[in-house]
């Protein structure tokens, strides 16, 4: 234990100084403000952590700076909103999505197929592009004709804003009905399947480092068959599934929305890694450009699909009550009235934002920690962070671990997005500022350290919220009668300032390891 202190003297000292400063500054605050600000800080810290931890896991193992992480966070929020507010749209999307993704699961098969193709060198260069082009054209032809119940961005009464508002009031607008009238179902399904097969084969040809696996087994086809099956089942039972989801209690629907957002993020992450990131492992600059580009594309897609205006995501009914018994005075009265706020030490605390989100943040922290420390996958990740080549030389498929980590990282971001949507609201820009906060948190905590991501996010959240609070009440400087009032622009600057100070003292961050 004493060696632990000796080795970590500087980080511990820095942390203690931060805490002393913090306590000294908090002196002039009454307990009610203090509790609220502390909980808000925890809430912001938890959301930041969900983004930062995924970013740090990906960077640690794969050396990829995924600058699209903020956008993926935002996409998570919009996916969560869609499932929660418009489950009918979500169900309509399942079939085309399952079909479009199915081809990408055949990645073990493609190298064998491409070995068989005998073409001149120039044709081999053109082939992937040609395949992707045909696939994209087909996609543009088929998808708009596929009936998906959506919303109308130009008509206010049918816009996401209105759907959200009505759902928040507890009434649902009747979903618009759509049917196959522009394209026959068989043509649509076959077309989407072809899009997926051509596109994924084309993309796989770019991966020069793809090497043949020893033999194909049923496993190589299993995911393909499963996705195909899901696509057909959701096609056949579309109405039944929609009615089931619409009839669900809003709490369960919200839970499903969060799960779907997380899983979609994981799937999106796996897809990104396998098709786009993988060919670029040896070219870090291109990775940066790719993720920046993806980020911009993501924002554009979200604008095109959900529109520019900001809108809210209703809270699940468990956290949305406002009856006579509200605000709740203790947790049992909260449970009875489902109040949106609760009185803690005299302060009114929003249950969803300031209690549920921090709790989930802590649960995720623990779950991922267990994954890293107690499972074989965690062992592979920790070893791979240091020396991928050696892990592979032990006979371990590191690439699979790469894909899983990328999926996990993006899944955490979209989980964060869906969770934060009811408290932050949905906007196209919600990811950018969060990515910046997450990067600052990682710089403070240590870029590839998982506990560092948690500590850094916590500090960033607390400092932001306390600075906002100080902007109203002022900081009383200890032992003097001076009161300092930070202006609003100080709020973002304060976290950067902390980062600069910490990096000057500890270039690897509080918990980062020396390279």
């Amino acid at each position, binding site marked *: 234990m004493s060696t632990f202190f000796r080795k970590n003297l500087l980080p511990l000292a820095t942390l203690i100084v931060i805490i002393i400063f913090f306590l000294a500054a908090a002196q002039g605050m009454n307990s009610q403000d203090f509790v609220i600000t502390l909980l808000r800080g925890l809430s912001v810290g938890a959301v930041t952590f969900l983004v930062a931890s995924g970013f740090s896991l990906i960077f640690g193992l794969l050396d990829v700076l995924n600058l699209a992480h903020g956008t993926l966070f935002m996409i998570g929020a919009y996916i969560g909103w869609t499932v929660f507010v418009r489950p009918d749209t979500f169900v309509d999307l399942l079939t085309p999505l399952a079909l479009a993704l199915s081809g990408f699961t055949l990645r073990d098969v493609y190298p064998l197929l491409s070995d068989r193709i005998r073409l001149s060198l120039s044709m081999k260069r053109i082939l992937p592009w040609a395949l992707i082009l045909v696939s994209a054209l087909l996609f543009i032809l088929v998808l708009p004709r596929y009936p998906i119940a959506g919303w109308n961005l130009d008509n206010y009464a049918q816009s996401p804003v209105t759907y959200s508002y009505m759902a928040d009031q507890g009434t649902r607008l009747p979903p618009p009905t759509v049917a196959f009238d522009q394209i026959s179902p068989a043509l649509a399904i076959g077309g989407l399947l072809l899009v997926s097969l051509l596109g994924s084969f084309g993309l796989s040809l770019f991966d020069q480092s793809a*090497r043949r696996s020893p033999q194909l087994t049923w496993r190589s086809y299993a995911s393909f068959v499963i996705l195909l099956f899901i696509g057909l089942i959701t096609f056949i039972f579309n109405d039944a599934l929609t009615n089931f989801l619409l009839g669900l209690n809003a709490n369960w629907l919200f839970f499903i929305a969060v799960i779907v957002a997380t899983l979609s993020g994981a799937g999106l992450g796996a897809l990104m890694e396998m098709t786009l990131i993988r060919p670029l492992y040896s070219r870090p600059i291109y990775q940066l450009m790719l993720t920046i580009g993806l980020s911009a594309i993501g924002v554009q897609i979200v604008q095109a699909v959900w529109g520019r205006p900001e809108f809210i995501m209703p809270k699940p009914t468990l956290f949305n009550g406002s009856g006579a018994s509200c605000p709740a005075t203790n947790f049992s009265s909260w449970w009875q009235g489902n109040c949106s706020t609760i009185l803690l030490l005299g302060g009114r605390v929003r249950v969803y934002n300031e209690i549920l989100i921090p709790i989930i943040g802590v649960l995720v922290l623990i779950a991922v920690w267990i994954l890293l420390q107690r499972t074989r996958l965690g062992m592979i990740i920790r070893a791979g962070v240091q020396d991928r080549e050696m892990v592979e*030389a032990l006979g371990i498929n590191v690439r699979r671990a790469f894909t899983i980590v990328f999926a996990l990282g993006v899944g955490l971001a979209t989980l964060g997005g869906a969770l934060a949507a009811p408290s932050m609201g949905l906007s196209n820009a919600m990811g950018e500022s969060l990515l910046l906060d997450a990067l600052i948190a990682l710089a403070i905590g240590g870029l590839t350290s998982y506990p560092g991501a948690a500590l850094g996010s916590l500090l960033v959240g607390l400092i932001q919220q306390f600075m906002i609070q100080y902007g109203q009440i002022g900081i009383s400087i200890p032992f003097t009668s001076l009161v300092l009032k930070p202006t609003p622009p100080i709020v973002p600057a304060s976290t950067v300032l902390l980062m600069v100070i910490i990096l000057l003292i500890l270039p690897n961050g509080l918990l980062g390891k020396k390279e």
Partner: protein
Amino acid sequence: MQTILDVQGIHTFIGQYHILQGVDVRVPAGSITALLGRNGAGKTTTLKSILGLTPPRQGKVILDGREVQGMRSFDIAAMGIGFVPEHRAIFRDLSVEENLKLAERAKGDYVRKRDFIFDLFPDLKRLIALPGTSLSGGQQQMLAIARALVADNNLLLIDEPSEGLAPVIIEHMMSVIRQLSAQSTVVLVEQNFLVASKLAEYYVIIEEGRSVRSGMMKDLVSDKAAIHRYLGAA
């Protein structure tokens, strides 16, 4: 005699550098074969090319009668190769036990082989809970070899086992490697000719990316001129 590993005329590039320009290595089953040559001759790259870590662009690597060049590294390794790299590559964030467990290829490998490994390296049993960072150079080398023994490997590729070790520990390593060669074939890269000549039965000399001479070690030992020409002062 049966050949377990047959490397035929491999060419390997690292980036744009043409590192291996035709290397042939034949390894008889059950033997210890030493790859000799000066610094930077391509000995380590040869080992890595066998494993596909630096995949050869030309030539064949035949392992147990099967062409493995172009296969994924982990698939090649899983065919039964244990790799002990230069500088040991112990995983710092893993405990000694985790370093060994990671090398499992089938569940339970570690438990099954534990006693055998601790017989060879009694020190490791004492250090089992320590993180990889806190080991000395000799202990790291023991762990690196032990790690290659957890799975049932019939071919061990050992890179510079004596590098940076005290003479007593080198003696220990040599006896361990000799013991291991009773069960598996060993390919050894070794700068220290004295160590290599005591251990190996066969040798291959690599010079500037080409294999230039190979044969029985006992013939080389008596050929002072060749030792001087290829390996410098011996």
